[in-house]
């Protein structure tokens, strides 16, 4: 039921995730953080059963940190993405992680990259992508409105448009979303809500 949306542009990447933790008919909380900050220039969002997701994201987070301490270097987004994929691949035929990921990062040269990974260790760099049911609704939205030379503000608006679309059409209530924004200056996080008023949809 998790929704993950990612958009990358020149010099930025935005990864958004819903914050609902739910099972069966019950919503436990709306403060579940599904995007972890790996370092000053990368974030990793995960979708899947909470146990696997938390374990995997924290495992990656700590290993990225360890690697940075050992080498004194910040790994590239490309290298980190392949490392994450390798962890998924190695675990696949032993004890698989049921986690679909979006890794977003901005490299030292200022270029933004977004990597889509699934629990089978498939990986593809994308300009924009999504995980979960959200994708069914907003990939076409992104196809329509995404522009390669978008500014950060336009990127944020596009994410909000997607969140609103999911809120309108997806039957599951996801009232709060976390948005992680990565630029050359670092990582910032915001919490947003859908800004669509569904009463508009009720005919007179």
């Amino acid at each position, binding site marked *: 039921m998790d929704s993950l949306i990612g958009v990358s542009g020149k010099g930025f990447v935005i990864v958004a995730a819903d914050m609902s933790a739910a099972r069966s008919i019950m919503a436990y909380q709306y403060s579940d953080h599904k995007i972890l900050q790996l370092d000053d220039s990368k974030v990793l969002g995960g979708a899947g059963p909470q146990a696997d997701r938390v374990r995997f994201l924290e495992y990656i987070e700590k290993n990225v940190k360890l690697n940075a301490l050992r*080498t004194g*270097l910040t*790994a*590239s987004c*490309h*290298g*980190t993405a*392949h*490392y994450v994929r*390798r962890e998924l691949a190695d675990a696949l035929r032993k004890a698989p992680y049921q986690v679909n990921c979006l890794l977003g990062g901005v490299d030292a040269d200022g270029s933004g990259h977004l990597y889509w990974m699934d629990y089978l260790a498939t990986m593809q760099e994308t300009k924009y992508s999504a995980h979960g049911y959200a994708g069914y609704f907003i990939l076409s939205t992104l196809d329509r409105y995404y522009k390669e030379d978008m500014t950060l503000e336009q990127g944020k608006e596009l994410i909000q448009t997607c969140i609103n679309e999911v809120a309108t059409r997806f039957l599951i209530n996801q009232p709060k979303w976390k948005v992680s924004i990565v630029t050359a200056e670092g990582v910032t996080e915001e919490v947003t809500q859908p800004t669509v008023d569904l009463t508009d949809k009720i005919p007179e």
Partner: protein
Amino acid sequence: MASESAYSFSLTTFSPTGKLVQIEHALAAVQKGSAALGIQATNGVVIATEKKVKSPLVDDSTVERLVSITDGIGMAYAGMGPDFRLLTRKAQKKAQEYYLTYKEEIPVLQLTRAVAKIMQEFTQQGGVRPAGVSLLIIGHDHDGPQLFQVDPSGAYFGWRASAIGKGYQQAKTFLEKRYADDMELEDAVHTALLTLREGFEGR
């Protein structure tokens, strides 16, 4: 120092003067080996080594003194050839493991550290002995051309120019005089050959 030799039986026991005598002996093995040297230039780095064979009957095409660890990293040595072979293979494997994980070529420094780690483990594990080689590792990556030396103790150093093996002291003195920060690769190769020629014995 008679008491030093009393500690030379054990790799993992310090002598009273704070040395690991086996490593000192390993360094002696290095100093008897054929010379090798390296020079870093502004646009590249070069290692050069003497390939002297014991007899004209030896097929010298089968003697490997300079080895590629990856397409971007090379290694030379002074000391025991078989130990070099082992370290070469381990270094090549480490480089490929790195690529398998990150899909990026291993940076020179990271490869050097991996090799140095292996050589240090040879000084502190059971049933092994220190490697009887010093290594010169060169490569080119995001940080430009680099030259590193790794000793039997596992200590590694970054150099602008260095020499190991027979006559390394004189070679280093020669290099100190001749080295310039703005040297280009052509000059560096030329200087490397001159330096080797200085220490060359006979034929």
